[in-house]
């Protein structure tokens, strides 16, 4: 078990290093933001001086070396736009994204799983069809469009919730619902399929024939076996949520890491993009580790793979 852990952890480390290299190369491939950062009346000489002071005129290898050395110590340089440490800026925004993602995750677990179970228990009834149609919509409609439509109906037309920004729990509802829609739909369909498969299994029919009461049979035996793929998928969906937060935060002007990343990419604020990517990659890698571990715990067959 511990050998498995160590191997996975090493793999994770390699993944992070790879990500850092890729990000650095992509960003530095096409010029630098010196001319964008300086005021419009700057002369060529002033732009060049700024470029030199920021170190953009050094050869790529040298830039990468100094970046790597600093990054290993957690220092990613100053944000070009905000003139503050990029890593600190990104970490500052993390709680907002975490709040959004966990709220959405709560919706996924509390709505998606029960809906899937319900749908499996009442196949081919109107409950089942309605749930499946909504799930289909959720998996087909783009997240940002759902966000815009929710804003249109609930914020603009009805005025129940604010249209953007962070504040109290009112501001959280629409973004969390938007972000969680896709994953809720997916989990619901998965839960339904898993439950259906399990319910049809022979040993359950035998148990029911023997006279075990229905709720006990379904909820206990059925769910336990369906648990494995559902839990795994929930782990994957958490990653999807973090990814989707980028778009949702942009639509709702939610001050999280995702929005910071999009702005930074647009403004060519390299250090901030690098910081956000490394944070995101670390989170993903850790998440995958946890999912793998969970999997190994739940299914002994995998442990010795």
């Amino acid at each position, binding site marked *: 078990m511990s050998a498995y852990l160590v191997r996975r952890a090493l793999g994770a480390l390699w993944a992070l290093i790879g990500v850092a290299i890729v990000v650095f190369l992509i960003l530095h491939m096409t010029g630098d933001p010196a001319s964008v950062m300086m005021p419009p009346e*700057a002369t060529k000489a002033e732009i060049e001086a700024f470029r030199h002071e920021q170190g953009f005129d050094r050869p790529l290898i040298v830039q990468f070396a100094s970046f790597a050395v600093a990054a290993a110590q957690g220092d990613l340089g100053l944000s070009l736009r905000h003139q503050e440490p990029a890593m600190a800026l990104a970490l500052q925004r993390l709680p907002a994204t975490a709040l959004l993602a966990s709220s959405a995750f709560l919706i996924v677990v509390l709505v998606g799983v029960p809906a899937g179970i319900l749908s499996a228990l009442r196949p081919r009834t109107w409950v089942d069809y309605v749930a499946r149609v909504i799930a289909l919509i959720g998996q087909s409609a783009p997240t940002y469009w759902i966000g815009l439509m929710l804003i249109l109906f609930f914020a*603009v037309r009805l005025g129940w919730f604010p249209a953007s920004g962070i504040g109290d729990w009112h501001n959280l509802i629409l973004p969390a619902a938007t972000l969680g829609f896709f994953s809720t739909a997916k989990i619901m369909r998965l839960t339904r399929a898993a439950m259906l498969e399990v319910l049809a299994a022979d040993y359950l029919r035998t148990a029911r024939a023997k006279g075990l009461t229905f709720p006990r049979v379904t909820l206990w035996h059925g769910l336990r076996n369906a648990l494995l793929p559902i839990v795994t998928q929930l782990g994957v969906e958490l990653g999807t949520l973090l990814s989707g937060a980028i778009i949702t935060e942009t639509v709702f002007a939610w001050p999280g890491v995702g929005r910071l990343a999009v702005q930074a990419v*647009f403004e060519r604020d390299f250090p901030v993009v690098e910081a956000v990517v490394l944070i995101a990659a670390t989170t993903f890698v850790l998440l995958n580790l946890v999912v793998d571990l969970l999997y190994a715990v739940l299914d002994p067959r995998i442990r010795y793979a």
Partner: protein
Amino acid sequence: MKRAFVSFLGALLALSPAAPLRAADTTVTISQGVDADTLNPLATTITPTFNVVQHVYERLADFGNGPGNYEPRLAVSWKRINPTTEEYKLRRNVTFSNGDPFTSADVRYTVDWIKNPANASKQTPYVRDIDRVETPDPYTVRFVSKTPTAIPPGLQNPLFIVDAKYFQARGNAYAGEHPVGTGPYVLREWKRDDQTVFDANPKWWGGKPKIDHVVFKPIPEAGARVAALRTGATDLITNVPPQYQIQLVGGTNTKLESTRSLRQLFIAFNTLQPGPQQNKLVRQAINYAVDVPAIVKNVLGGRGYEITSPIPPNYFGYDAAVPGYKHDLAKAKALLAKAGYADGKGISLVLNAPIGRYNRDREIAEAIAGQLQAAGIQTTVRPQEWVSYSDQLNRRALTPMYELGWNQPSADADGVITALFTSSAPLSCYGNPEIDKLADQARGELDVAKRKALYKQIATILHDDAPWIVMFQYEDLYATSKRLRWHPRGDEWIRAYEMSVT
């Protein structure tokens, strides 16, 4: 009965001037489209950030109403003591909010900070005309330039004075997040992209400001800004798109404010790249083909002011005698034919435009393309998002035509001409040695009348050579709650210390 009378008297006494009632605290909330990118006033170049920091920090003098008009702030008076030296007398008994006294050493530190390569400041262009700072005594500062400059270098650009002791003790990063200034407000908290809260500084040299608390709450989406204003969540919003005018003008607690902006929108020809735009006749023809009043009416809903020269009427250096191009399709076609493109044959142009950088920038570009098509000139619009647009702009790679806006808060022709028409400026796609020479001369010409004459000369040459399609200045739209007393400025700066509430 007697007891009631006594208590009534007691209540009256309590209301007497000896025990004044406390008026309710006033708070004004301002919503721009973006948050301040930093609270270090020496590390930014964008107006929305200046709008925030100028409540804590102050300049030597603020722009007043009209070009060359300044309101004394940290400097009470200034004069030119020789052609290359400007001397400022500083305000006495001013302290920073942490108690440090304000002296000329702080002014010198500010300029040195910007010039210091270790700080990699983006404001180096603002101090390029200051060669040396002299501080003969704690309340006198002299800026010495290499060559004479008509506009005092300490006044024409945003130069916010910082506390030298504080910056040196705490370092840039800390001082950037915990601003200490001489201004009318102090920072209470700054939650990035959420809100920035200022409290009135009772020790401000100008007396306690009328508004007790100022909150900057950025709202990126225009629709959300309008909604916030209507629900009372904010008191002032910027950049109101025209389609919301109707809702706001007659609103129960909103009103629309507008002002003629110092910002103009224009189309420039890239005369440095090969193509038909290098032919003066083609450029003039295109100028005749464009109908600016129609664009202002149809695309801006009338919220714009047609101008005829890159030096507009609200700038120093404007001369009404310089002609413009009136829409004349016949003249356009004739000039085209003379240039060898009869009926627009053989000419095909691309108009580059940014998306969402200026109000309706893309729609205006499309409208112009449409007008040129009507004159027989094949034109397509190539819109791009701002950063890649700006990148190409700085490399002079946008060709043959591109759209751009320009706001010069000092309202002086020098800023426009030097940055947009001289051959060494990165943003200028025009090279005319005569203009270079005249611009240099005008920048250093200390006699006001002579300077004006020089700019008239420049404007006349530019009219004839037509490196631009001169178009219009915006009418900036703001909206406020009914209780707010405030008028917008053409330079887009917002000052809470000039506001009051009813």
